[in-house]
């Protein structure tokens, strides 16, 4: 019961915020709505026992990525997207309908009886605490962990190179 309350408490704003991200005219509001989505999602992660990941979500995603978006929005001085003028062109109309179909199929697959063999019991050692995650990272998943640092390095170099001024004055 408690879980249900909290679930709906976090999910419904999340959905509303997501819709705001998509349909809001002003970009800054979209970015801020995404922030709300991130927070709600972090809450859901905690409910699902992924404590470390929830923290990461807030720190990295909400704290770094979204800030980056904000800066870019401010830098480029984006105008409000004129949604009213946005005529429902064929492609976009078909896209929306297709997405609706996709949703239909996903719901059908997910609510099928065969998928309900998933138990929801908690087990010790499967909690997403820092200690557990850290142990897993440095033993089983050490290779991806090291490789991801290369990825970050590549991203840094890429970002720096791309943002360099073209003409060297």
């Amino acid at each position: 019961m408690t879980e249900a309350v909290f679930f709906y408490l976090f999910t419904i704003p999340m959905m509303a915020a997501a819709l705001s991200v998509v349909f809001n005219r002003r970009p800054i509001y979209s970015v801020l709505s995404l922030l709300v989505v991130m927070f709600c999602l972090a809450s859901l992660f905690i409910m699902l026992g992924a404590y470390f990941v929830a923290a990461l979500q807030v720190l990295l995603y909400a704290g770094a990525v979204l800030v980056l978006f904000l800066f870019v929005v401010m830098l480029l001085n984006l105008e409000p997207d004129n949604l009213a003028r946005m005529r429902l062109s064929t492609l976009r109309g078909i896209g929306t309908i297709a997405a609706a179909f996709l949703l239909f199929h996903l719901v059908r697959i997910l609510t099928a009886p065969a998928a309900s063999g998933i138990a929801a019991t908690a087990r010790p050692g499967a909690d997403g605490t820092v200690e557990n995650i850290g142990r897993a990272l440095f033993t089983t998943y050490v290779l991806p962990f090291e490789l991801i640092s290369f990825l970050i390095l590549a991203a840094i170099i890429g970002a720096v190179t791309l943002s360099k001024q073209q003409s060297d004055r």
Partner: protein
Amino acid sequence: MPLPSASAMLTIGPTHYLLASAILFVIGLIGIMTRRNVIMILLCIEIMFNAANLAFITYARAWHDLGGQITVFFIIIVAAAEVTVGLAIAVLLSRQLKTLNADEIRLLKW
């Protein structure tokens, strides 16, 4: 498909989280289809990433396997890297083509 009963709605299981993830994913998808600004499209891609994260975490919980959460860890990092480079490219685009309207960026057609 019959409407879910009251007990089904109140007893939260993995299916609920997965449905939430699905709805979030589709919202992000609609955003990609519909938005005209390139930056906003990138933003909607982030929603889709988050939906996937939710699914991973749900299954990690359901199957008592921490691999799901590790995966989400990596996804977040990769998403950050991708946003970095993506936004840099978007800034460059706005400088070169003087526009960020997705309808006008048609360089993929020769």
